[in-house]
């Protein structure tokens, strides 16, 4: 299949989209959007796979300018070239469009061939520019890497002769950078660019280059140097500067100039007692002052042949005390302030400091949209593997994106512009649920940005319980969207309610069990206070006989039959339960007199099940004689039942 670059046509008029499609379809793969909002959704969907956007200005919902602003807000400006097409011809209008980041403007009526030419050229130009940017970035990076490497090799040679570790040079470089940045922060009169700081730090690597000319015996003498030897040693400053000055061709280079200053004057003291030139105070160039301090600090905190390493705190204390030279007060206060930073940077880390990434702000190494495509791939991989249903909802513009599984289950597109009015979502969630979700969103705040709740959702035609977990996203105190998860809890919920049901109801008859009835009865009485309640215990007469004679299965049938009689004759608000065996409980509220109700019940709960005549005895306790307490009612009713049975069965006793 031939690859065709993708173009997004954004126009609310179908007629216009058709005209453009006809011009372009031979060479391009066309994607259409009928509004700015839909366009945003398409851009999210296709990302950098879009080679161009053809944009109309006048559109409902979100016009061309609003779309351009949104793209700019999201950092997409310049990622995909845009050509605007409009019948507007005012220069202010066209200028504004260019300011908002379009590449080209075509006025109506347009010539089909010219549209094609411009589209071709814009795409070509953009891809060439991208390629060049990438190339330049690569080369700059490579060049920096190489020069960095050379200077490091050179300074390492000096240190190698010095029988010291190669870390000192790197450390001096890092500390120099930190000190200069701190000085710039603290001293408003000290203005220095990032580039210059980098340059000084790089040049600091050569501060001891003169040591290459000093005799090994003196350079590496374990004991104290004689006065004569020290004089020779001091020469490394002058010799270093001289060597650098004689480097052919590069004397004018700023790097070389700074390196000379540092090499010659990094042993000068602020009080004028240093060497070789006894410069005083600000006569000493700042680069040399800073490197001098960095050199001393690192020497103190590193182990050497002649000394142990001091702690950073101790080293700074010694320097401030004037034990290791004299420095500018401003630099000393910078050093003190940097105490923690110096401790934190891993000075021993054996890597080369690469260039400051800030230098590359002009050149984008990574593009927002390609990142977005990458992130989306990653996201889609994880969500697919974990079967998670994630979603994200941005407010400006209102776009809902969700993982494929969620979209599949809700039978909607994974990217939905303006979800509040999307028919698919309304169908799956229902208007009420959508309002519920929006209400939950409204209640979230920056302090309390999360919530979860359950909804009954239509999933592929089946109603299922979902748990919605929501997190509000705040950006500079303003909520700009939400993300979250849909979790299908249907099976779990159903299982739970089945378990609850099993725990509360009698398997055989479907009536409540005693424990559950007790709980409900007590609750009912607590809630209603002092109403008239009747508590009835019913016993089937001669049930044991029926059981013994016809077997247990028959007995079960009788119990089921009797339970159905109960269900038929009580109100839904009454509580009826099987207490166990052939005993049942009824509990209900009555207005004045209980006797007529009991009489009616007594008659209706009798009958005939196959060969077994169903007859009952009842004990009825009421709250007129007992307290509103389950145990007391129970005991009383049980007592009365016993009396009823004793007096010949098939009757009832009431405590009234």
């Amino acid at each position: 299949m031939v690859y065709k670059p993708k173009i997004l046509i954004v126009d609310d008029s179908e007629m216009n989209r058709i005209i453009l499609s006809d011009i372009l379809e031979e060479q391009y793969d066309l994607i259409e959007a009928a509004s700015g909002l839909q366009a945003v959704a398409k851009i999210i969907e296709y990302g950098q796979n879009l080679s161009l956007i053809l944009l109309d200005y006048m559109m409902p919902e979100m016009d061309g300018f609003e779309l351009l602003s949104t793209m700019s807000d999201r950092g997409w400006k310049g990622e995909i070239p845009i050509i605007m097409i409009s019948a507007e011809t005012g220069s202010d209008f066209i200028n504004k469009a260019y300011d908002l980041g379009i590449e080209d403007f075509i006025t109506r009526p347009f010539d089909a061939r010219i549209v094609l030419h411009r589209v071709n050229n814009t795409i070509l130009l953009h891809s060439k520019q991208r390629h060049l940017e990438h190339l330049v970035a690569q080369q700059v990076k490579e060049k920096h890497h190489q020069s960095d490497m050379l200077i490091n090799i050179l300074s390492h040679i000096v240190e190698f002769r010095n029988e010291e570790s190669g870390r000192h040079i790197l450390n001096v470089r890092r500390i120099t950078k930190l000190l200069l940045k701190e000085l710039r922060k603290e001293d408003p009169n000290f203005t220095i660019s990032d580039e210059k700081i980098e340059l000084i730090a790089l040049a600091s690597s050569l501060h001891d280059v003169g040591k290459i000319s000093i005799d090994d015996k003196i350079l590496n003498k374990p004991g104290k140097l004689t006065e004569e030897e020290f004089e020779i040693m001091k020469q490394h400053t002058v010799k270093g500067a001289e060597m650098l000055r004689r480097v052919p061709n590069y004397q004018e280079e700023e790097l070389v100039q700074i390196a000379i200053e540092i090499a010659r004057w990094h042993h000068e003291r602020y009080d004028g007692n240093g060497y070789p030139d006894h410069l005083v105070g600000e006569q000493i160039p700042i680069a040399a002052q800073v490197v001098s301090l960095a050199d001393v600090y690192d020497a103190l905190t590193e182990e050497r042949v002649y000394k142990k390493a001091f702690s950073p705190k101790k080293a700074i204390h010694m320097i401030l005390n004037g034990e290791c030279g004299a420095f500018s007060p401003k630099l000393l206060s910078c050093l003190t302030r940097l105490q923690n930073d110096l401790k934190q940077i891993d000075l021993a880390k054996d890597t080369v400091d690469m260039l400051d990434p800030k230098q590359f702000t002009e050149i984008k190494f990574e593009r927002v949209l390609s990142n977005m495509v990458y992130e989306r791939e990653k996201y889609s991989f994880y969500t697919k593997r974990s079967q998670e249903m994630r979603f994200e909802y941005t407010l400006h513009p209102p776009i809902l994106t969700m993982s494929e599984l969620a979209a599949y289950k809700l039978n909607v597109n994974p990217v939905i512009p303006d979800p509040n009015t999307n028919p698919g979502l309304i169908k799956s969630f229902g208007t009420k649920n959508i309002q519920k979700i929006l209400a939950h969103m409204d209640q979230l705040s920056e302090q309390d940005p999360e919530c979860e709740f359950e909804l009954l959702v239509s999933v592929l035609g089946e109603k299922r319980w979902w748990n919605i977990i929501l997190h509000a996203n705040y950006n500079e105190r303003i909520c700009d969207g939400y993300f979250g998860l849909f979790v299908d809890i249907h099976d779990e919920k159903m299982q739970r309610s089945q378990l609850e049901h099993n725990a509360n109801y009698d398997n055989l008859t479907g009536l409540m069990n005693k424990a559950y009835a007790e709980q409900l009865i007590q609750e009912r009485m607590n809630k209603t206070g002092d109403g008239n309640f009747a508590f009835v215990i019913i016993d089937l007469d001669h049930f044991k006989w029926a059981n013994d004679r016809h077997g247990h299965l028959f007995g079960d049938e009788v119990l089921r039959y009797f339970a159905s009689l109960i269900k038929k004759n009580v109100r839904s608000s009454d509580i009826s339960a099987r207490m166990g065996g052939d005993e049942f409980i009824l509990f209900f509220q009555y207005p004045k007199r209980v006797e007529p109700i009991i009489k009616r019940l007594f008659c209706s709960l009798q009958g005939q099940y196959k060969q077994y005549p169903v007859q009952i005895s009842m004990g009825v306790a009421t709250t007129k004689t007992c307290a509103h307490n389950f145990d007391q009612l129970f005991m009383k009713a049980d007592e009365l039942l016993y009396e009823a049975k004793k007096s010949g069965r098939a009757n009832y006793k009431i405590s009234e």
Partner: protein
Amino acid sequence: MITLSECYEKMEGNYLDVKTRLRSDRLIDKFLKKFLDDPSFSQFMQAIDEKNAKDAFMALHTLKGICQNLGMGALYESANELCELFRLGWSDEGASKSTTLGVVYEQTINAIKEHFL
């Protein structure tokens, strides 16, 4: 059945210009046929009924753009004039001129239909 050239004469448009821009008679035919279903005009009339200036402007703007591209001269002139009247909000003058636009629209549609007879 009238020819494209005759059709454009009736629509007070420049047939040659359109043919140069849109490349072929086949495409012009295709677009004109499609124009018979374009909703911009009825959207405009509905906006007038509802006194909705924004929608009226939007519909006219689209209509004018299409007419311009398809070289339908008379309808373009009429839509363009009305479009400017509604640019800054409701216009009674614009509303009263909508009947004129209706007449021109009718003529344009009839010319196209005659071409396809």
